Structures are given as C-alpha cells and as structure tokens.
C-alpha cells in the first residue's frame, strides 16, 4: 500500500505527535478513520464467536449471524447513544418544543362519571380576550382507537362522557392563565347517567351500556370482550395428587413515567400538519390523526420527541393529540398542550384491575395436569389494547411449563373509570403471579422443592406450547439453576426464621408480536430500516423505532456498527420524524430489538456487500477472503494487504454517490388457526426466573424486599449494561405493583390518588439489592441471537415476593398490593386461627422432602440432557406440549387422545360451571338474540 488515501479537504501533515488535537483547527484524521484514533484497532477476539474462530463461548450453539460478527460492539457494555443528551439536559421532550407564536391549549374535562352532553355553549369562552380557538366533540366526530377492531374513542366526547376526566372540549389561548380561566366559561347541560364502577357489575345488563357494539353487543352488558379457550386432555384433571385454587384481587396500577403527556401541533405554510409528541407508537398516532382530521397520512408529519418514559402508557393514539391538531388548524398557530400529573392518571392506560381465579392440579408423578384460569379485567371507559389483554391474561400463562390441559375464560368489561391499557408485561403479569404462587402451593402439598417442581415440568427448546406457540430458544432451565445457586436457595428455603423469607417465580413473555395489528404480515414487513452512507463515511440510519429510554436507538446503531466494523460514533440514527423514518409499528410488545435490529442487519449487510465489492476491485481479492475490521478491509491471509474503509467506500460511490440500502424484517409463518391463535404469538419468547428475599415486620405487616437474584434469558445481550438496566428497572416497577402501588377509587368512584405523593411508587429506600443475571440462549432468529429484555423481567418479581412472604410468615396472600394493612390482617387471622397470644410466636413454614422429590429431581436431570441437545440443535425431533404425558409429537394430538379438546367456545353443558369472567358466556349477542 502507498502512503495512504488522503481525504479531501484537509491535510494530516499538521498533526501533533502527542496524539492531541490542535485547538480550533479542523483536521481530518488519517484515512478511513472515524474519530481521533489514528491506528486500526486489533480485532477483539473475545467478542467474536468460537464458531468463526474467535474466543466468545457459545454454550447454546452457533448462530446464523456469527459470520458477520466483527467484534466491534455487540456484547459490550456501552452507554446509550442518546445518554449525553439526557444527562446534560439537552434532550428535547414533549414540552420542550417551543414554536414561535405558540398558543397554550387546555382541555375541559368531565366532572361526571357518566353523562350525556345535551348542549355545549361556547359563546362566553370565545368572548374572553386572549382566547384564540375553541373546539368541541362536534369538530371531530370520526372515531379512532389503537386497534382497528375497537375504534371507540373520539377527540372529545361526541355524545356522552364515560369517566370523570374524559375530554369534553378544548381551548387555546395566548397564555396558560387565560386558557384555564376559559375552561370555567363553558356552559354545558348534562344529563347524568347511572355509572358502573364495579367490574362484576359490568357483566350485568344495564339500560345504557357504556359503548354500543350493535349486533355484536353482548346482550345489554358492559362486556367489551370475552374469551374462551380449552386445550388438552381434560380427563387428566381427575384424581389430582395435588391442587391449588386461588382467587386473586389485583388493583390497577399506572406506569408512573416521569414525563407527563405533552403535544405540540402546527399546520405549516403548505397546510401539512407537524405534530410533536412523546409517543411510543408514532405510527398509530399518524393513522388516527389522518382518520380524525380527514387528512391523508402523507400530509401529516409526526415527530416523536424524546420520550420521558413510556412503559406502554404512551402507545395509544391520544385524544389530546387530536385536540392540539384541531385547535392548531382552527387558530392557524402552533398549539402546545402539556398535562398535569392528574390528567396523566385520567388518561391512564395502566394495568387492568383484575379478579383472577386459578385452579391447578398435578398428577401422581408431579406433572401439571390441569391449568384453569378465569380473569375478569376492568377496562375502564375505553377499549384501548383491551381486546389483546383479554387473551394475554390466559395464553401467556401457558408456558414455560408442559401442561396436561388448559382452560381459560376471560372477560374485559367497560366501567366508568379511566381506561386501562397496555403496561410493561402487558396482560401477562397478573395471571403469571397467580400461577406461580399456585405452583408454590402445589409444591408444598407434594412436599417438594418448588424449583425442582418447575425444573421437572419445563418445555424444552424448539417445541410448541399447548396453545400452539412456537418456542425456539429457551433458557428457562439455566435461569432457574442460576438463581438457585446465586441465592444459596438450598440453604435458605423453608429454613429462615419468622419474618425472613425467600421465594421463587418464573416468567415468560413475547419478543415481538407475530401479527402486525394493521396489516397482513405476508404483504408488508413488520419493520423496515434504511441506511445511507455518504462520502464522509458516516452512516445515517433511518428507523421508525421509538426509543422510549429502553435503548432501541442504541441497539440499532450497535448492530449496524457491528456489521460494518465501524466505531459506534460513526452511526447516526434518525428516528424522530415520520417524514424520514420508514413505517414502523413502534415500541410495544417488546418487538423493537428483535424486529428493527434484524431489519437493520439486513440493510447493513447490503451496504457491506457494496463496500466489499469495491474493496475487491481495489485489492483483487474476493469478498469471501476479506475481513472488515475497524475502518479497514484487509486480506484474510495477509493483513498488510488492505484498503481503508473510506477508500473502499469512495470506490463504491464512484457511479452512484452515497450508498443507500433498505432492510426489512418479517416474521415466519407460525401458530395455530383457532380463534385468537394470533394473540400471544411471537417469533421468540423470553424466559426468566427470580428469587426474592424479604424481611417482613411481622407486627406491623410491612414487607421489605431485600435481595433479588434476577436471571433473564434475553437470547444474547447486545449491550449487557442496557439489559441489566432493564432487569433492575423491571424489579422496581414490579415491586411497586406487588408492595405499594394502586389506583384507589373511593366510594364515589373518584380516583383518590392521582398524584405522585399518594400513588406510592417505591423510593430508592425500598429498592432491594438486585443481582441481574443474563442468560444467553442464542435465539436462532434474533439479531445476533437477541430476544427481548424490556418487559419479561418484570413478571417474576411479583410471585417471587408473594412466595417469599409466605416463606416468612406462613400466610398466603392473594390481594395485591401487599400493603401493610393487608399483611397485618392476614397475620392476625392466622394468629387467631392458631390461638396464639402474639404474632411473633407464629410458626415458620418448613419443608421435609416427600417421596415425590426424588421423582422430580430425576426427571429434571433427564430433561436437562434433553434440553441441551435440543438447544444446540443436536436433536431436531418434533416436540409438542403433551410429550411429557406420553403422546407422540408426530401425530396430531386429537387423533391420539379421546376427548382432546381445542375449543374457543364453551359447550352448553360447561356453561353452569364457568368462573366469574366465564359468566359472560351466559349472555347472547344482539345478533343471536335476533336483533341488531
């Protein structure tokens, strides 16, 4: 090679020799560089997999992406690429957007729980000096909703309000003070209706259901969605050796993100809407705006600001976003609306308050023969994601265990309360808690260790669940083993003194939803990523992935940097504007890393190919023999023969200028064909196991979680630091739900604690010491093997704590959160039942292993060998749920077993014995009743 390739303009001859920059002088560093590092870095073999000659261990086998690993960033702990903006206060959140000549919008909210609006007179509002525009429901009567099947929301109430705080009208004014004053000048005539607050009452017929679904409406009830699913051999339930039956009551919880909702809308001089909003799912807002405003989507640019926390609470298209756009259109000026914390609770979309009943049975060799769940969930005033939540409450509880039979009835009802929706761990959290506590109870009846009970009943890698979900990689067993060892479980469980306890819980969650809500996955991809590389060598990545703090921008930047072997500083991710970002479904259902990073890898591979081809032209060696490493491309067998990245890039650009590539991700066909089969279907699933230790103040009932060992199978940690952050953050959020957080509705139906003082998010003092343990099962379809780590880690903390409390005081609690009054009451009841004077004399639960223990340990050992072979694809035989019960995986189960059920509607004879939510099946739809 010659002296090198000189980049224009600039001259590197004035370079200082001490490695420092010359102040005030812009000098291009040596050819091919992307920073101040003058020399190429050595290949980092520690981060190159064994299968391709590196030193990175691969216990779970090799991966299809191993070949494109360059040892640059994948697997290394990096700070997030947007962290500088955040820690220096320069990140621009929703309310930081200040456009010239802005006006301030305020929303008039319903003072009634349920009422018809007979008339609205806005004349006094309009007459107030300083008011610029006023809008009511009549200004935008098109309905919208996050799911196409349940479009039941309006920008503002059109005919009636459905909960206190529901939007009635909005106004924009020169100042906030004027806007607030204007709110008091609306003259509204109301006709109050009888509200429904109790979710059980939602199952009953009423005069005026909260929504009306025409011929699909279920009698005259407030049931929005009912689900029935039955799979497996129900005869196995008889002759149970152990069983657990628990009725749970769980309060609603809110995401509690830091940034309140805010939006800025502006119609630019060309009549296009520019809308700034901290959204997790800008695309849905984009669609809804188009519907509500009657404007084609290409005339709307949705700009996602930085998002100050989302957790599912910013994933619906929101009515206030419509309000801002409507006011801005009317006024011709930008409109900014920022919520008070109280308004954040009124728009809600938090976790559903639920009544959950779980019945489980185990047979004489400790197999889980029956698994019955009934979930009645309180949806509040609107559908939101509720259609999906109704399924998730059942189907996401079916793994990681192999089940003899599964029976689920679920119903979501409307009530006159702020709408529930999607929240981290969507739909899976509450039933997961109930199920894992049920397993603990069964283990106690069988006198076995609950970890061994789980280990002997796990589905292996590359198998199918009872409802037909395709499991690929599966690190469940390893996760359980790690927490067992890490926590020193065998020395502590059932051996700690009164007040101290230890408990275990597992989790299972989707890594991306298999079905894009708005389109056919066979006709349009889930995710698309564009990459552009210009002459400076910097790589611009366009993606619609919404970074909500989880690090999706970093993940996308990382995989591109890895494929192209460039320093991460050279990758610039542009993800804020719908004008430049390819369509993306946004940040929900833990899909972003899996889908966007996969799409980004594909786009980067295309760029890589073009650059390698140019290098071939220069060097004369075929790309198969070339190595990409840190801004340089060289011949595999003689590294001195090479070309700088920049020179190769410029060669590639000779005829066409900047390089452009597009990559997409589409999930493979999978899953069953029954009604609801798509709910819970995902290209991969994450698994987790936690052990929690608690200290219970036995006299006061105060529970403090002190230690958590948290193992999560994320496939492959692209950025271990970020994964650990998600695990620790999930523990915090889950602890809130299990110990202190609840949305309190008083006797008048009002939300009593719509503020951060009375809504009890755990403080730093309540945070236990969390030991995050990353399990890498290397998913065959994940980007470099990665799966989700954002939601799944939340699930196990709840049951782990509840089980630990039992271990500490010997009382089973089934009401969440475990506030001290609940725990106190439970302990007192136990004290009286045992006729003790002082609760400090309560006996601690103890375990003497029964005969079943050996059976389970032996089976677990056998399964461990089985799982390892399957994980490493040494064994590629079929495996479906049922093999444990002796069925042949190669023959359809219904052909082998008499009475094998696969039903999505109850038989008439079943109707009498359905659970609480199942009662919804006693009603007929209007169509069945012969009306419409």
């Amino acid at each position, binding site marked *: 090679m010659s002296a090198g390739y000189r980049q224009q303009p600039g001259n590197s001859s004035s370079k200082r020799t001490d490695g420092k920059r010359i102040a005030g002088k812009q000098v291009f560093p040596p050819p091919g560089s992307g920073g101040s590092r003058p020399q190429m870095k050595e290949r980092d073999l520690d981060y190159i997999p064994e299968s391709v000659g590196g030193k990175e261990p691969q216990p779970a086998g090799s991966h299809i992406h191993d070949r494109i690993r360059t040892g640059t960033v994948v697997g290394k702990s990096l700070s997030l690429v947007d962290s500088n903006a955040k820690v220096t206060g320069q990140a621009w959140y929703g309310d930081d957007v200040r456009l010239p000549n802005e006006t301030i919008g305020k929303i008039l909210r319903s003072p009634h729980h349920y009422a018809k609006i007979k008339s609205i007179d806005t004349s006094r509002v309009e007459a107030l000096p300083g008011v610029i525009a006023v809008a009511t429901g009549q200004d935008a009567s098109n309905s919208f909703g996050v799911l196409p099947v349940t479009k039941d929301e309006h920008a503002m109430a059109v005919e009636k309000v459905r909960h206190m705080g529901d939007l009635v009208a909005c106004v924009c004014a020169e100042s906030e003070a004027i806007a607030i004053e204007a709110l008091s000048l609306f003259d509204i005539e109301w006709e109050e209706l009888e509200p429904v607050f109790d979710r059980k009452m939602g199952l009953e017929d009423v005069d005026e259901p909260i929504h009306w679904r025409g011929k699909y409406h279920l009698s005259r009830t407030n049931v929005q969605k009912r689900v029935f699913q039955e799979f497996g051999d129900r005869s196995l339930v008889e002759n149970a050796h152990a069983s657990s039956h628990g009725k749970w009551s769980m309060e609603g919880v809110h995401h509690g993100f830091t940034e309140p909702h805010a939006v800025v809308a502006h119609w630019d001089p060309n009549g296009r809407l520019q809308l700034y909003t901290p959204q997790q799912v800008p695309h849905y807002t984009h669609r809804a705006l188009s519907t509500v405003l009657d404007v084609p989507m290409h005339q709307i640019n949705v700009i996602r600001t930085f998002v100050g926390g989302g957790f599912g609470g910013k994933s619906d298209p929101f009515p206030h976003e419509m309000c801002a756009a409507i006011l801005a259109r009317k006024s011709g000026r930008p409109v900014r609306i920022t919520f008070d914390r*109280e308004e954040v609770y009124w728009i809600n979309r938090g976790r559903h308050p639920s009544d959950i009943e779980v019945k489980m049975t185990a047979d004489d060799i400790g197999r889980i023969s029956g698994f019955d769940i009934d979930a009645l969930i309180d949806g509040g005033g609107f559908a939101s994601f509720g259609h999906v939540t109704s399924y998730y409450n059942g189907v996401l509880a079916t793994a990681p265990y192999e089940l003899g039979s599964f029976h689920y009835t679920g119903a979501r009802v409307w009530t006159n309360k702020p709408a529930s929706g999607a929240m981290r761990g969507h739909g899976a959290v509450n039933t997961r808690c109930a199920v894992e506590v049920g397993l603990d109870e069964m283990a106690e009846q069988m006198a076995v260790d609950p970890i061994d009970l789980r280990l002997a009943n796990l589905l292996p890698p590359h198998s199918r669940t009872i409802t037909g979900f395709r499991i690929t990689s599966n690190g469940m067993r390893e996760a359980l083993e790690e927490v067992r060892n890490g926590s020193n479980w065998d020395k502590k469980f059932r051996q700690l003194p009164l007040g101290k306890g230890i408990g275990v819980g597992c989790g299972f969650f989707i890594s991306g939803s298999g079905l894009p809500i708005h389109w056919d996955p066979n006709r349009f991809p889930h995710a698309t990523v564009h990459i552009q590389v210009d002459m400076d060598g910097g790589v611009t990545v366009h993606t619609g992935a919404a970074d909500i703090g989880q690090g999706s921008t970093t993940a996308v930047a990382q995989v591109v940097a890895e494929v192209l072997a460039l320093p991460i500083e050279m990758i610039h991710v542009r993800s804020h504007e719908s004008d430049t970002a390819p369509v993306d479904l946004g940040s929900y259902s833990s899909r972003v890393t899996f889908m966007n990073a996969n799409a980004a890898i594909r786009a980067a591979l295309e760029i890589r190919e073009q650059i390698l081809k140019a290098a071939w032209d220069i060097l004369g060696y075929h790309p198969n023999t070339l190595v990409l490493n840190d801004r340089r491309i060289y011949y595999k067998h003689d590294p001195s023969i090479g070309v700088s990245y920049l020179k190769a890039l410029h060669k590639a650009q000779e005829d066409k200028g900047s390089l452009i590539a597009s990559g997409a991700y589409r999930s493979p066909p999978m899953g069953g064909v029954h009604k609801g089969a798509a709910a819970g279907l995902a290209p991969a699933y994450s698994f987790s196991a936690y052990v929690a230790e608690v200290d219970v103040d036995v006299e006061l009932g105060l529970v403090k979680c002190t230690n958590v060992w948290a193992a999560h199978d994320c496939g492959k940690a692209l950025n271990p630091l970020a994964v650990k952050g998600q695990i620790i953050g999930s523990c915090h959020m889950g602890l809130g739900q299990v110990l202190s957080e609840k949305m309190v509705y008083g006797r008048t139906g009002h939300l009593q604690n*719509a503020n951060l*003082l009375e809504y009890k998010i755990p*403080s730093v003092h309540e945070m236990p010491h969390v030991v995050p343990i990353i399990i890498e099962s290397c998913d065959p379809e994940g980007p470099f093997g990665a799966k989700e780590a954002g939601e799944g880690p939340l699930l196990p903390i709840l049951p782990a704590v509840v089980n630990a409390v039992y271990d500490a005081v010997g009382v089973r609690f089934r009401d969440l959160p475990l*506030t*001290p*009054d609940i725990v106190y*009451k439970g302990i007192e009841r136990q004290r009286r039942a045992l006729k003790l004077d002082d609760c400090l004399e309560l006996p601690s639960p103890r375990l003497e292993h029964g005969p079943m223990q050996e059976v389970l340990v032996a089976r677990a050992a056998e399964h461990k060998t089985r799982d390892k072979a399957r994980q490493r694809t040494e064994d590629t035989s079929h495996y479906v749920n049922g093999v444990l019960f002796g069925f042949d995986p190669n023959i359809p189960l219904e052909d082998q077993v008499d009475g094998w059920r696969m039903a999505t509607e109850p038989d008439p004879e079943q109707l009498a014995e359905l659970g609480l939510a199942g009662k919804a099946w006693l009603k007929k739809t209007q169509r069945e009743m012969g009306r419409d």
Partner: protein
Amino acid sequence: MPPFTLHHPESIEEAVETASKLIAQGDDFDWVAGGTDVVPNYKWRINPKPHVISLASIPEANQTSRYEIGCMTKLSSLTADNEVHPLIVEAASKIASSLIRKSATVGGNLCLDTRCFWYNQSEDWRRSIDWCHKADCGTGADCRVIPNQNTLCVATYQGDLAPNFMALGAEVTLIGPDGKRVMPLEEFYQLDGMKKNVLQRGEFMLKVTLPKDAYDYEGSYQKLRLRESWDFPEAGISAAWKKGDYSSLRIASTALESIPKTHDDQVSEFVSAWEKGATISKLSDAIRKSVKPVNNTALPPNYRRSVVRILAKRALNNIGCE
C-alpha cells in the same frame, strides 16, 4: 398557580405591620415559610389567598440555638452537628425527602395544614364532588369523610415534629398584632381540621423553645409510613423520659387525628405502679384506644389504630422502658 402578591418583611415589626395593614384593607393572606406545603396547595387552588407574607427575611425567625429554634430553621439543619436534641434530629430525618428538607422549615411543619383524601386534590376534582367542608368555596358543603356532620373538619394533621417537641415539653412563641404569646405546644393545637391551631388572624409562630431540662430526656419516634421517603406519617408515636424516671415519661402522637396530642392521661394512669413488661402492653393499648383515626389517608383507619399499640411499645422499648 393563582397569582398572589408576595410580601417580604425584614423584621418582626414589619411583618406584624404588613399583616395588620392587609387585615385593615380586608385582604386575605397566608404566611409562608419554606413553602413546601403552601405552594402545592396553591397550585391545586386549595384556599389560595391574594397575598402571601414570607417570614424568610425576619432575623429572629432564622436564629437557632440548643434551646430556641426559629420557625424558619430548615429541617435539613436539624442535625446532631448543630447540637439539636437527638429526638428532634431523629424526627426531622424522617420527614419527606432530603430535597424537601432543604426547603421545609420547623415552623411550617408545626403549622402544617391538615390533610385529607377529599381535600388535597385539584380544583376540578373537588368541584366534581361538590367541594368539601374544609374548602367549600362558599357552598356550605358537607364533610366527605363522615357525611351528615357539618360542624367539624376531620382532616388529619400529619406533621412529624409536633409530637416530639411535645414529648420534650416545648413551648412556642407566637407574634401578632396584639403582641407576643408563649404557650406549651400542646395548647397551640385546637381540635378541628380547619381551625387547626390557636393562631389568630395576623399572628404567626416565631420560634419553639425547649425547656432547660430537655437535654436530660431521651426519646424515640416511631413513624408508620409505606415508603421511607416522601411519605407523611400514617401514624406517629413519640416517647421521651429522663432515663429510669418513670414519672418523667411523656408520650405524644400524630397523624391519627386533626391535631397531634399528648397522652398524659394514659401515662399517668399506669406509671405510678409500673410493672415490668405488663405495663407497656397496657399503656400501649390505652393509647390505641384513645385515638380515633378516620378514613382519609393512604392506609385504612382501623389498621392505623391497631398498630398504634406496636408503635408505642417500640418507642418505649427503644428508650429503655421495660
């Protein structure tokens, strides 16, 4: 935030004069010290006034010594380093969060507004329940905690310092247009969630004074709360005594009623014939029976009442009462 005029008197005289002038003009006003209680309430438009008089620039209110603590003393400066009584240090360290303690003051904590689920809410929220007795906006609204009684406000006093100062026998100095008043702290509070204390219009608390023997007292404060930061007490018991001298024992409680109170009656009933072990249990139970919390804070009243027994027992055990 509703607009108001902020006054900054720089002496006691000027403060009294400012207040008198506003009274004469018929203008309503509030005193403000650290503002951590008043300002959030104003933001929610809970009884906001057009004028606010700050005590921050009055030199006497900012003075602190071992025995006299000015009302403007920041909670964060109630530390052992500043030679503050250990019981007060303990109580102050349990108030709110370290950030709030940097602004919040002793006077503000003692004069804390009473709190209630139906009262500490935004204006829209309160309008939708047709207001409540404490902030009725001229409607004469009923109490929402205990309906059909229109005479007493049952909002809960949730200050932490008061029971501890009471247990040490502290006195407060009040300054007003009619001059200076000094009284024991327990006489400062008046049973009604609206009236709260004896402060007359135009009168403010200048300082708290500990008796000469206060430092002979050893005390313990037991605070019930869900989180170890931010939260107001759901129940609080303070006990103090001159170690070994049962006749000196004092117990006071907070967050259980509209005012903090001492439990001299219960203490005197048992203290004369102290019986090791048994008396603590009897005394704790008597204190539990003497309080009547209502349902207007985060935790249910029956629970708060039940655990008063435990809190009292622990406070007594902590100071070596057996």
